[in-house]
């Protein structure tokens, strides 16, 4: 068994909401290995979003330890968190979050700009990423000239371009019709099969069934964490 990329031990997250303390996460322990395909499930208020934010290094836990590739995330400052997000994590959002006035290629280049890659290398990598999602003929298109599915593909290409350790997808099919959603799920499967580690956050059972492992959360606790024996396979 390889060393886990994500190693979370006994983490909790407590928010102050007015005079009340809200326990979004209570004593969670999870580890995720390389090339796993994990679905994170739960109804709203289950702590799923909080866990995703912590996994994505957008937030830090109140207590417990989080090792990302052997780095203790709790000890990192703002800039170090930004750097880990930049290099190690590829985000895919429900609403795509593309820059509306920038071309597909420019959108994909953005994380490389922040990691200081030279212009020539940037374009080369962005073109390769766009090709891997099958949109090499849409390089100069702006988001509003692309369909929803195409936009999400651009967003996935942007997540891939830095060759991150994990791809963190938050309801990636939430804004798509079921046919297009299926295409996107097929793309995730291909990425997983070619060696990527994928964490899928969703509240839809159907979508979660594409993953190899399903973690269910409820009231800030892990309800179940088991392998999915009914994985939907496109091949």
């Amino acid at each position, binding site marked *: 068994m390889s060393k886990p990329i994500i190693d979370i031990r006994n983490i909790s997250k407590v928010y102050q909401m007015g005079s009340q303390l809200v326990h979004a996460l209570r004593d969670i322990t999870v580890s995720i290995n390389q090339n796993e395909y994990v679905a994170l499930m739960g109804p709203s208020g289950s702590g799923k979003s909080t866990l995703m934010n912590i996994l994505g290094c*957008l937030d830090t836990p109140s207590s417990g330890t989080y090792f990302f590739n052997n780095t203790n995330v709790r000890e990192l400052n703002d*800039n170090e968190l*930004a750097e880990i*997000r*930049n290099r190690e994590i590829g985000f895919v959002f429900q609403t795509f*979050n593309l820059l509306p*006035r920038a071309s597909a290629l420019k959108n994909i280049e*953005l994380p490389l700009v*922040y*990691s200081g890659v030279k212009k020539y290398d940037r374009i080369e990598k962005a073109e390769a990423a766009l090709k891997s999602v099958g949109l090499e003929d849409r390089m100069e298109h702006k988001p509003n000239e692309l369909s929803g599915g195409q936009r999400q593909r651009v967003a996935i290409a942007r997540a891939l371009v830095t060759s991150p350790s994990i791809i963190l997808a938050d309801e990636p099919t939430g804004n798509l019709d079921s046919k297009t959603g299926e295409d996107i799920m097929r793309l995730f499967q291909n990425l997983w099969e070619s060696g990527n580690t994928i964490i899928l956050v969703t509240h839809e059972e159907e979508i979660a069934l594409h993953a190899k492992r399903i973690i269910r959360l409820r009231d800030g606790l892990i309800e179940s964490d088991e392998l999915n024996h009914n994985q939907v396979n496109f091949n």
Partner: protein
Amino acid sequence: MNLFESIRMAIHSIFIHKLRSFLTLLSVAIGVFAIMGSGSLVSSFDETVETEMANLGENSFKISRTPSVQTGRDSWRKYRRRERIDFKQYSKLKDKIEDLAFVSVESNQSNMIIKYSEFETDPDVTLQGTNEVYFNINDRDVPIGRSITEADVEFDRNVAVIGNDVYNKLFNGINPIGKNIKIGNQKFEVIGVLDEKGAILGKSQDNQVIIPITRFNKYYSNWWESLDISVKAFNKESFPYVLDETIGALRTLRSDQPGDDNSFEIETNESITQQFSGLTGYLTYFGLLAGFFALAAAGVGITNIMLVAIKERTREIGLRKALGARRFWITMQFLVETMTITLIGGLIGISLGFIMSSVISYFLGLKVSIPMDWIIISISITTVLGLISGLYPAFRAASLDPIDALRYE
């Protein structure tokens, strides 16, 4: 990520938000226009005064009843009681310092008509009475014919040296020497033509006729008119001594009491320049003040516009942070954006200000020069303005929480 990328992104975003950028740009341009316009206008004015008005030459000074530039309401009251400088005072002064300096005397009548046979000039010629050293002190040549001599003055001869404009109007290519012209009812023989000088402050220096002061006083001067005296020391070393002697002699001649101020003005190149800068100082001050108020208003406007822009782009900022933009780069992005807009506005203001001052200078007959100092001042002010008004919005943007920012609708 480097500065170049920031600037590129900033320019991109400026083009996206055209109207907003234009309004910001305009407010900065107006402020800079006021500063640059008044500044460079004053520069041209000062330069003109320095190079053309203050043309007394080295080791020279000028004596007159009142200063050549008068500012303030009380000046008329202050000077009106002063006794005029008359020919007798001039003669006595000349006797006293003749061995140390050239002494010339001048008196003018403007708006004269000069006639030659059936030709006549417009009523705009300046008639000047003076003596033989005027040409030396004022650095004027008489390339055709001769200038006025001591004997011409002493014997009150009816001879005249004419300026180039008058020559062109009346003689048009004919040799004027020995011809008779008429000034009023008096006949004069033309003995020379002055070299061409061009215009100062829009007034031609060639539209004049020079005659001996003695003749001038007899026919063209009113009894109350005061004379101007110019003195040029023979050398630099004797200049302070000549100045002292002159002041002493004049005070005695004009019976100024010990302890009283001089009842006349002594002007050197330096003092003339100084008097003008006193006058132009007001204009600079006013331009700066107006510009600063306009820019202060612009600054508040820019801060406000940038805060709105950041609010609108909250999700974009959240996304950039999620993708790994450090605080520093978010700060830079918005700061550079603000500064780029203000600098473009500043450059427009500088251009418009310079164009305006050049046009005005042209019509006033001032020298048009590129005022580097005011360009540098304007650019510095604009840079500081962009920095100050952009810093707070940029910090606000950089310190947004990425989770909240991404969720922002």
